[in-house]
C-alpha cells in the first residue's frame, strides 16, 4: 500500500458496509430487548423472590458480569456442540449477547426498583390512590426516569459490542469490513471508515435517546459535554 | 473620590443581560446594602466586582484607578483589595478551619506563616470559633461555616468586603450568630457591600440601601427613606411586600 491512502477504492463498498450496520443494529436491539425481558424477571426475583431463586440469580449475574462476553460466545459456539447443541454464528452471538445483557440489565433494573422512595408511596397512599394508580402515576414514571439513562448507556455499549460477531463470521458491520479488507487490502482506509460508521451510529443513537429521554421520561441526558 | 466608581456597566451571563447600565459610587468605610427580588442582579454585581463575571461595557474605578477585568494582573490586584463571602459551600471541604483561613494568605499572598496563623486565630476568636480550629467544615453547622468564611475573608486584609446573601442558606436559628459577626465588623469601619434579605438587619447597619430590579438600579437612598418612604413605585411595591412577611 505504501504511504498513500486511497479511499476511492473502498468507497464503492460503502453501501455494502452500511447494510452491515443495519445487521449490527438488529443484533443489538434483539439482544437488548431479550436482555431487558430476562433482566426484568431476574430483577423481580431478586427484589421479591425466595432465598433459593434469589441466590440462583445472584450466581448467574455474578458469573456473566465477571467473564468476557467474547469468551461466553466462544463457549456457546464451540462447547455446546459437545452436547449436541449446534448454534449458527448469528444465533450464538445473539444468545450470548442476550444472556450477558440479562445479567447487566437485571442489576440496572434492580437499582431502579430500589430507588423508589417510601415518602412518594406514602404521599400516593394518603391521596387515596389505588394500587394500580400508584403504579401508573407514581412508581412507573419515577422508575422510567431513573432507568432511562443507564439503560440507554448500556444499549450503546451493546451496539459497540456487536462487533465481536465478526469473529464468528457474522456479516455485520465489522464482518463486512473484514470481507472488504480481504478483497482490497486497503486496511487503514476500510477500518477507519468503519470506525466512522460506528461513531455516526452511536451519535445518532445518543441523540435520539437523549430526545426520547427528555420528552417522554423527563430524564435529562447530555449528548457531549 | 469614591473608593469604588461604577459607570454605565453592562454584563451578560451567556445571553442574559444581568446588569443593565449600572452607575454606582461606594465611599470608603460605608456599608452599602443591595436589596431586590431574585434575579435582580445583586449577586451578579458582587461577582462582577471580584472578577467572576466579566463586564461587556462600562468602567469600574477602584481608588481612582481604572480596572480592566480582562487583564490578569489587574484581576490579581483587585482581588487583593476585595474579598467575598458566598451564600454557601464557601469553605474548602478538604481542609480544617485553620487551614481554610490560612491557606490563601500563606500560599497566595506569600505572607509569613506564623504571623498569618496568629491573625487567623485572632479572627476566629472574634467570630466565636476559637475552639474549632482543627474541625472540618462538615463537622460544623451552617452558621459556624459562614462565620469561618467571614474570618477567612478578613484574614486576606481586604479594603472592601462583599457579603453575598451569607445567611440565605441557613436555618433561621443560625442566622443571628452570623449577623452578629457582620455587625461587629460594621462597627470597625470596613467598606462593605451586603446583599441580603434580612431587612431589619439591612435597615440597622447600612449607610445606604440600593434597590435593584431586573438588572437595573432603581433607587439608592438612606435606609429610612427606602423602607418608609421610597421615591420609586417599584421600590415601594417590593418593600411593602417584604415587610408584610
Amino acid at each position, binding site marked *: 500500500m505504501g504511504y498513500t491512502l486511497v479511499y476511492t477504492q473502498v468507497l464503492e463498498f460503502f453501501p455494502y458496509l452500511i447494510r452491515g450496520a443495519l445487521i449490527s443494529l438488529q443484533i443489538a436491539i434483539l439482544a437488548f430487548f431479550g436482555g431487558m425481558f430476562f433482566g426484568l424477571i431476574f430483577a423481580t426475583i431478586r427484589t421479591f423472590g425466595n432465598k433459593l431463586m434469589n441466590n440462583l440469580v445472584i450466581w448467574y449475574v455474578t458469573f456473566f458480569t465477571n467473564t*468476557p462476553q467474547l469468551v461466553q460466545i466462544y463457549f456457546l459456539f464451540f462447547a455446546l456442540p459437545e452436547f449436541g447443541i449446534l448454534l449458527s454464528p448469528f444465533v450464538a452471538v445473539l444468545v450470548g449477547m442476550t444472556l450477558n445483557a440479562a445479567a447487566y440489565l437485571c442489576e440496572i433494573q434492580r437499582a431502579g426498583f430500589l430507588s423508589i422512595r417510601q415518602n412518594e408511596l406514602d404521599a400516593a397512599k394518603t391521596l387515596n390512590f389505588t394500587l394500580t394508580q400508584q403504579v401508573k402515576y407514581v412508581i412507573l414514571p419515577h422508575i422510567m426516569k431513573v432507568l432511562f439513562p443507564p439503560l440507554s448507556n448500556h444499549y450503546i455499549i451493546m451496539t459497540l459490542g456487536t462487533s465481536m460477531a465478526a469473529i464468528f463470521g457474522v456479516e455485520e458491520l465489522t464482518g463486512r469490513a473484514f470481507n472488504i479488507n480481504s478483497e482490497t487490502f486497503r486496511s487503514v482506509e476500510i477500518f477507519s471508515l468503519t470506525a466512522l460508521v*460506528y461513531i455516526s451510529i452511536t451519535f445518532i443513537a445518543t441523540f435520539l435517546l437523549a430526545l426520547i429521554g427528555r420528552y417522554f421520561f423527563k430524564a435529562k441526558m447530555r449528548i457531549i459535554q | 473620590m469614591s473608593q469604588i466608581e461604577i459607570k454605565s456597566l453592562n454584563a451578560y451571563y451567556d445571553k442574559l443581560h444581568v446588569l443593565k447600565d449600572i452607575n454606582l459610587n461606594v465611599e470608603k468605610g460605608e456599608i452599602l446594602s443591595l436589596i431586590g427580588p431574585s434575579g435582580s442582579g445583586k449577586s451578579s454585581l458582587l461577582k462582577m466586582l471580584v472578577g467572576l463575571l466579566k463586564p461587556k461595557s462600562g468602567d469600574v474605578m477602584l481608588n481612582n484607578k481604572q480596572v480592566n477585568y480582562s487583564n490578569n494582573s489587574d484581576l490579581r490586584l483587585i482581588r487583593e483589595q476585595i474579598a467575598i463571602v458566598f*451564600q454557601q459551600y464557601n469553605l474548602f471541604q478538604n481542609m480544617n478551619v485553620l487551614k481554610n483561613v490560612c491557606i490563601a494568605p500563606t500560599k497566595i499572598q506569600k505572607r509569613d506563616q506564623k504571623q498569618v496563623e496568629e491573625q487567623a486565630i485572632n479572627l476566629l476568636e472574634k467570630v466565636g470559633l476559637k475552639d474549632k480550629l482543627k474541625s472540618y467544615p462538615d463537622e460544623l453547622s451552617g452558621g459556624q461555616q459562614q462565620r469561618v*468564611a467571614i474570618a477567612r475573608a478578613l484574614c*486576606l486584609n481586604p479594603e472592601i468586603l462583599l457579603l453575598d446573601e451569607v445567611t440565605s442558606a441557613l436555618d433561621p436559628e443560625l442566622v443571628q450568630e452570623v449577623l452578629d459577626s457582620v455587625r461587629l465588623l460594621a462597627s470597625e469601619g470596613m467598606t462593605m457591600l451586603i446583599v441580603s434579605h434580612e431587612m431589619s438587619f439591612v435597615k440597622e447597619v447600612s449607610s445606604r440601601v440600593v434597590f435593584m430590579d431586573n438588572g437595573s438600579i432603581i433607587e439608592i437612598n438612606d435606609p429610612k427613606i427606602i423602607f418608609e418612604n421610597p421615591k420609586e413605585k417599584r421600590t415601594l411595591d417590593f418593600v411593602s411586600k417584604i415587610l408584610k412577611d
Partner: protein
Amino acid sequence: MERLIEEIPSFFTIWNLIFLGKAMGVTFLLTAIGCFVGFSLGGLLAIFRKTKSISLLPLRFLIVIYTEIFRRIPFLISLLLIFYIFMILKISDNLFLIAIITVCLIATAYIGEIIRSGIESINQTQWDAAEAMNFSYFQILKEVIFPQAWKVILPPAFSFFIMFIKDTALASQIGVMELTFAAKILNNKGFSPLLSFGTILILYFILSFPLDRFGKYMEKRLVTNRN
C-alpha cells in the same frame, strides 16, 4: 462426558498451567498498564479540558474529538486500526506493543471522562471562592478540587478497571498471548472446547471477582467516610 473426564489430567499438566498462568499475567498486564496510563493521561486530558482561556480552545477541541472517537469505536476496530497502521508504516510488529498502545489509548479516553465527571461534581462555589482569592487554575485543582474529587473518581475508575479486564479478551484477535488466545490455542491443540473455554471463563472469573468484591467494599467505605 467420559471423554471429558479422561481429558482432564492431560489438560491440567504443569506445562499447561504455566502457560495459562503466563496468559493470565498478560491479560492482567494489559489491563493494569492500560489503566495506569489511562489514569495519568486521562487526568491530563480532564485538566486541560476544563480550562477556560480562549488560547487553549484548539486543545480543548482536540481533547473532545479524541475522547469521543475512542469511546464510540468498538475495541476490536481500534485494535485493528492501530495494528494495520503499525504494520503499514513498519513501526513495529510486536503484537504486545500494539495491544498495549491500543489499550492505553482507549483507557485514556474512558478514564479521562471519569476524572472530568469527578471534577465537575465539585460545587462551583469551591472554584469561585478559590478564584476570588487569587488561586490559579492549577492551584485550585491541586489544593481544592482533586483532594475532594478523588473520592468521586475512584469507584467508577475501579469499575472501569474490572470491566477492562474483560475487554482485553479482544486482543486475542491479533494474536496476543492473553487468556482468550490461550484458550483458542488449547482448543486448536485438540483439547475439548468445553474444557478450554470453560477453564478460561473460570480464570477470568478468578481475576475479576475478588477485585469486584474489593471495589464494592471500597465504595462502601468511601460512602460512610463522606458522611
